[in-house]
């Protein structure tokens, strides 16, 4: 298999994991998780220069922060299948006494997680702080983060955007999951956010657009370009155009599956569309 084929296979398995995880507990957020499956696979299998075993301080390695914590299923699946914890543990998602809480947390000591997220709008500030620590430490590795587009309605993001540009925090790549959907409907219906690229640029960020945000090659190309732009006194934003629910036809192009689990029949359909490649947990 080519590397791309392997990444495709990895992604298909991640989609299965997401569907099975939320189905088992009849709760969780499959839509955004599926929309970002390719991104997470590229992030953990291609982009991030990671060290093992996991250490909270992350000195000498790239860091990733998930700000829109509700897409925890894709995060957990990719972390487990990237070796941070046993894949079997995905079975405990959202169960009592589990390290895989509904939203990611450091509180239960799950390797791979460096900050709790779920209450929206906080992750960019944290990522900026971690990037500043890297600069103080003379650590040349990068800080990556992911944010929902609807999440940008939280004002704290704009405080962080202003700070990072004003202080030349140029070792950070913040990706926006630009799917145009949020719980109550499309972002245009809930609160139109205007020209996001222009807004980010006006705040002093360089912006890379990835038009095909569910295409592995495009994501690799776009993130590599973003990486090449770091270290030039400007923070980098990536607008990742994704389709919510990608890879499961009835979940695509709608906000209906933002926070809803499939029933038994729907699960079967979804799994049929995504064959097991690495083996189910």
């Amino acid at each position, binding site marked *: 298999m080519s590397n791309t084929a392997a990444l495709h296979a990895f992604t298909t398995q991640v989609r299965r994991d997401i569907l099975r995880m939320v189905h088992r507990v009849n709760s969780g957020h499959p839509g955004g998780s599926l929309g970002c499956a390719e991104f997470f696979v590229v992030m953990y299998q291609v982009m991030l220069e990671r060290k093992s075993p996991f250490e909270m301080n992350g000195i000498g390695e790239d860091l990733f922060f998930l700000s829109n914590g509700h897409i925890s299923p894709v995060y957990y699946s990719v972390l487990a299948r990237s070796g941070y914890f046993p894949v079997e543990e995905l079975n405990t998602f959202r169960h009592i006494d589990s390290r895989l809480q509904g939203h990611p947390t450091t509180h239960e000591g799950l390797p791979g997680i460096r900050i709790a997220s779920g209450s929206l709008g906080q992750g960019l*500030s944290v990522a900026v702080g971690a990037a500043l620590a890297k600069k103080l430490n003379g*650590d040349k590795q990068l800080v990556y983060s992911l944010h929902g587009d609807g999440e940008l309605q939280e004002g704290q993001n704009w405080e962080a955007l202003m*700070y990072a540009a004003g202080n030349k925090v140029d070792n950070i790549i913040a990706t926006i999951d630009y799917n145009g959907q949020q719980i109550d409907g499309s972002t245009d219906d809930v609160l139109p956010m205007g020209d996001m690229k222009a807004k980010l640029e006006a705040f002093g960020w360089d912006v890379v657009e990835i038009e095909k945000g569910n295409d592995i090659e495009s994501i690799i190309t776009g993130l590599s370009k973003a990486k090449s732009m770091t270290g030039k006194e400007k923070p980098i934003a990536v607008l990742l155009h994704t389709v919510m629910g990608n890879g499961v036809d009835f979940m695509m192009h709608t906000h209906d599956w933002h926070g809803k689990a499939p029933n038994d029949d729907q699960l079967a359909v979804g799994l049929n569309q995504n064959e097991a490649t690495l083996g189910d947990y």
Partner: protein
Amino acid sequence: MKEYINTGSKDTRSGFGAGLEEMGNNNNKVVALCADLTGSLKMDEFKAQHPDRFFQIGIAEANMIGIAAGLTIGGYIPFTGTFANFSTGRVYDQIRQSVAYSGKNVKICASHAGITLGEDGATHQILEDLGLMKMLPGMTVINTCDYNQTKAATLAIAEFEGPVYLRFGRPKVPNFTPENQIFEIGKAIQLTEGKDVTIVATGHLVWEALEACKSLESEGISAEVINIHTIKPLDSEAILKSVSKTGCLVSAEEHNYLGGLGESISRILVSNQPVPQEFVATNDTFGESGTPAQLMEKYGLNSTSIVTKAKKTISRK
């Protein structure tokens, strides 16, 4: 009673500034963040001497808390500085999720706490912050009484692993604790010995408690004054030991009685050794403009008020 001498009134925030400056030279992991109140927080010296480890965030407290949480990832010990109101109520969810729940080693340092902020009035005064912070799981909550103790606490919390809320104030108040007293987090300091009533005070009310103790002594009432600088974890052993002797207690704080030190003490008393307790605290109210002395008088946060409440709690034994 043991005499305490005011060696010269100073503001507690200057104790914080002095502690931060000293640490800046001794611990290169200490970093400081400020939201456009560097002068008010007395962070100027740290900023001047360690510009690389000082972060001017601008008027964006939520971002400041998040950046501080991020700086811990990489091994730093961030001290954030702004007024108590903007350090707590304004950023409660940021502290809750990114600091407390995430278990980050952030030191939230808050000046201008309570009503003694004075003339700016209720928008800037906060009388709810101790309650907000003590409710957060894993948060250590400290309210210091004078310059020396604030400096000592600032040094001590850098050595302590975990989130801390350190509360201090704006006005010049008597400086009376020993200059080099080691600050032990969670360890109450008994200031006077007495047998008739226990007075447990925190922050600016500690000196007032000592004044009240003198006044009570002149009337033949022997008061035991305890300086509680750590609201959480609370030194229940010291409190219970004292009331087992005196049989009654007055709590004194520059804070709403709802959610304050007094309520934490009540819980310990009713669970272990119920005795009468009276509260010197604000009564579910906002503050207002005025001089610190006028406000402490109007809201019953001074030695006169402590004397009155001491007699009342004794009468209820």
